[in-house]
């Protein structure tokens, strides 16, 4: 797989956390591609540096794009 496009759509912040909305397009090995939005949630420490990050992704959509549905039963 290869990332074809990666765009930051928005950034929203609270005191110690930042949510980044991104749109990502991935080229799949079979020639297809999948485009979807993701949220990336970052936590910042006392020094203002990122110490934790978590993806919020529609994994079901990616599983379908990868053709792995049968592997999950």
């Amino acid at each position, binding site marked *: 797989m290869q990332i074809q496009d990666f765009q930051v759509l928005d950034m929203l912040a*609270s005191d110690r956390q930042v949510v980044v909305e991104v749109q990502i397009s991935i080229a799949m090995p079979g020639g297809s591609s999948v485009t979807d939005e993701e949220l990336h949630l970052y936590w910042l420490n006392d020094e203002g540096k990122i110490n934790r990050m978590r993806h919020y992704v529609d994994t079901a959509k990616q599983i379908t794009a990868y053709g792995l549905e049968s592997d999950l039963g």
Partner: protein
Amino acid sequence: MSVDAGLVVRRLYAAFQAGDNDAARDCFTEDVVWHLPGRSPLAGDYVGFDRIATEFFGRIRELTSGTFKVEVLEIFPGDHRVVVLQRTSGERGGRKLDILVCQLMTLRDGRIARVRGFQADQYALDAFWA
């Protein structure tokens, strides 16, 4: 502007918590789309408040026998977008759900026009509703 967006979302959660459908309806545009990702029977797009209230939230309450709960952990307000980080929990037929969810809400003319849920554990949510 960003304060208004945050206030609309806070009003929505307060309305849901109070079971006040009229107040909740007032937070949405008429053509609002609520998208639940995943592969579960509940996944898909719900268009308009009536469908959201009956086919989505009503179904959730019914399936979980009223145990479904949402705890707001953080609200990230922007000009036209708001993200709500929430803990979602419930029980259904011996299954337990307890996951973090980010609800991305897009506003138009001061009302919520689009909602998309981003689950920290999509597998857990799909398995819970399967």
